[in-house]
Structure formats: C-alpha cells, structure tokens
C-alpha cells in the first residue's frame, strides 16, 4: 500500500501559495486568508498523528483548511447575525418575498464569469507549480511570480545563469502543458 509521508518543514514552501489562493477565493481578504493558512498548518501539526497516509499531504491540508474557513464564517456570523433586522422584504405582488438587493441591477454581474475564471486561475497555476519537481518549482516561482533577478537566484541556488535558463525553460514547457490541460 502506498503511504504518503508527512513533513511539516516543507509545508510552507510547498503548499502555502496553493492554500492561500484556495482561501482568498473564499474569504476575499488577504490578512484573513493568510491567518487561516497559518492556522491550518498549526492544526495540521497538532493532528499529525492522525495522518494515515492515505491521501496526499496537500489533500489532507486542504481538508483542514476547509474546516477553518467554515469556522471563520461561523464566527463572524454569530457576531453579526443576531443584531441584524430583516426589513428587506417587500410585499408588492409579484416580487413578494424577494430581497431588495435582488432587484437592483448588479453592475458587476456582467463580468462575474470573468471574475470567477480569474480567481480560479490562481489555483490552477499553483496547482501546476506544485506538480513541478521541487527545485524547478522554487526557481520558477521566484523568477516568475516574485520577480527576483537572475543573478540573485543564481547566487541563492549556486548555479550558473545558463543552468537557470535551462531550468526555467523546462518549467515553462511543463507549465504550458499543464495549464493547457487544466485551464484553457
């Protein structure tokens, strides 16, 4: 039986961006998303004993994160929901029982689809990065997402510039292929 091992030391490098993108689509706030990711790692650490190795590390962490997101919404709702007075109902025949908000033309509605696509793009990209070999993934995201200089990366990993470009080339080819499958 294949078992997946668990190693908290590599969590942040490997999964934080993926989890972060997953969260931000759902809570729409950088700070909160970052906190939730952090809490997920803590919770994962605490319940490491329960990790049976049946799922991959990432799947396991996502399942914890989902709980954390639900908890987050529970918390903010229990504070707010009690005081809310529901006066938005209208009672003029046809639209009876509709919320007022539902009757207002939504200016964002036209590009709602585009927005959803965009938010999922972040997840798709980090998903694909996660499939690259580890060194490639790190160098590629440093160069492409965080915009480090070629020289800085070369120094950090102790490689030559042409070395770096070969790695980048391989990563880009793999990324294009992966995104083609999962995105376009």
């Amino acid at each position, binding site marked *: 039986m294949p078992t997946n091992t668990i190693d908290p030391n590599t969590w*942040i490098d490997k999964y934080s961006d993926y989890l972060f993108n997953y969260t931000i689509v759902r809570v729409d706030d950088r700070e909160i998303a970052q906190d939730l*990711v952090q809490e997920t790692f803590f919770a994962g650490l605490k319940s490491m004993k329960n990790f049976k190795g049946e799922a991959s590390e990432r799947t396991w962490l996502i399942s914890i994160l989902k709980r954390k997101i639900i908890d987050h919404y529970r918390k903010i709702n229990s504070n707010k929901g009690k005081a809310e007075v529901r006066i938005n109902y209208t009672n003029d025949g046809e639209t009876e029982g509709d919320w007022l908000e539902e009757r207002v033309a939504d200016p964002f509605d036209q590009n709602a689809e585009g927005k959803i696509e965009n938010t999922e*793009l*972040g997840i798709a990209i980090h998903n694909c990065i996660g499939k690259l070999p580890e060194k490639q993934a790190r160098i590629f995201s440093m160069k492409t997402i965080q915009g480090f200089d070629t020289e800085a990366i070369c120094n950090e990993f102790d490689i030559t510039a042409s070395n770096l470009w070969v790695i980048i080339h391989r990563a880009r080819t793999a990324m*294009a292929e992966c995104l083609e499958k999962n995105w376009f």
Partner: protein
Amino acid sequence: MSTGNKIFVSCENANHICDKNQYKEASFWEKVKLNIHLIYCKACRKYSSKNTKLTKLFKDPKVISINQSAKDAMKEQLKKKMSELE
C-alpha cells in the same frame, strides 16, 4: 550563450532568447535574431506564442502569493510550535 554575430540562430538558441524575452532580459540584437528566426520556423513560432500566453496569465492580478517575508515569519512560528509539541 550568444554565438557571435550570426543572424541565423538554431531553434535551441531561439527558444532560449524567447525565454529570456519573457522576463525582458533579451538584448536588442537578440530580439532581432529571434524575430528573424520566427519568420521561417513554424515550431518556434508556436512555442513563442505559447510562452507569451503563459507570461500573460501570470500578469493577471488575481495570481497572488504570500510574500517572502510573511512566509519566513510563518516558518518561524511553525518551528516554534513544533518545538513546543516535542
């Protein structure tokens, strides 16, 4: 990696320039060479357009990541927790 002043470059070289160009690190002369190559090489045209598309995807403001300093802070805290649990 540049090979003198040859106007015609190999596909391998053209791809290398194309990769560099995605990060705005190709020199003017390299770009000229790349474009000349693209005129007659269909395979590289395909690679080049794919590559540009990929770059565009990453320019999307929704593609975000936690910045490095925040990540380092997270690592610190995780380490602390780990030592507490041991």
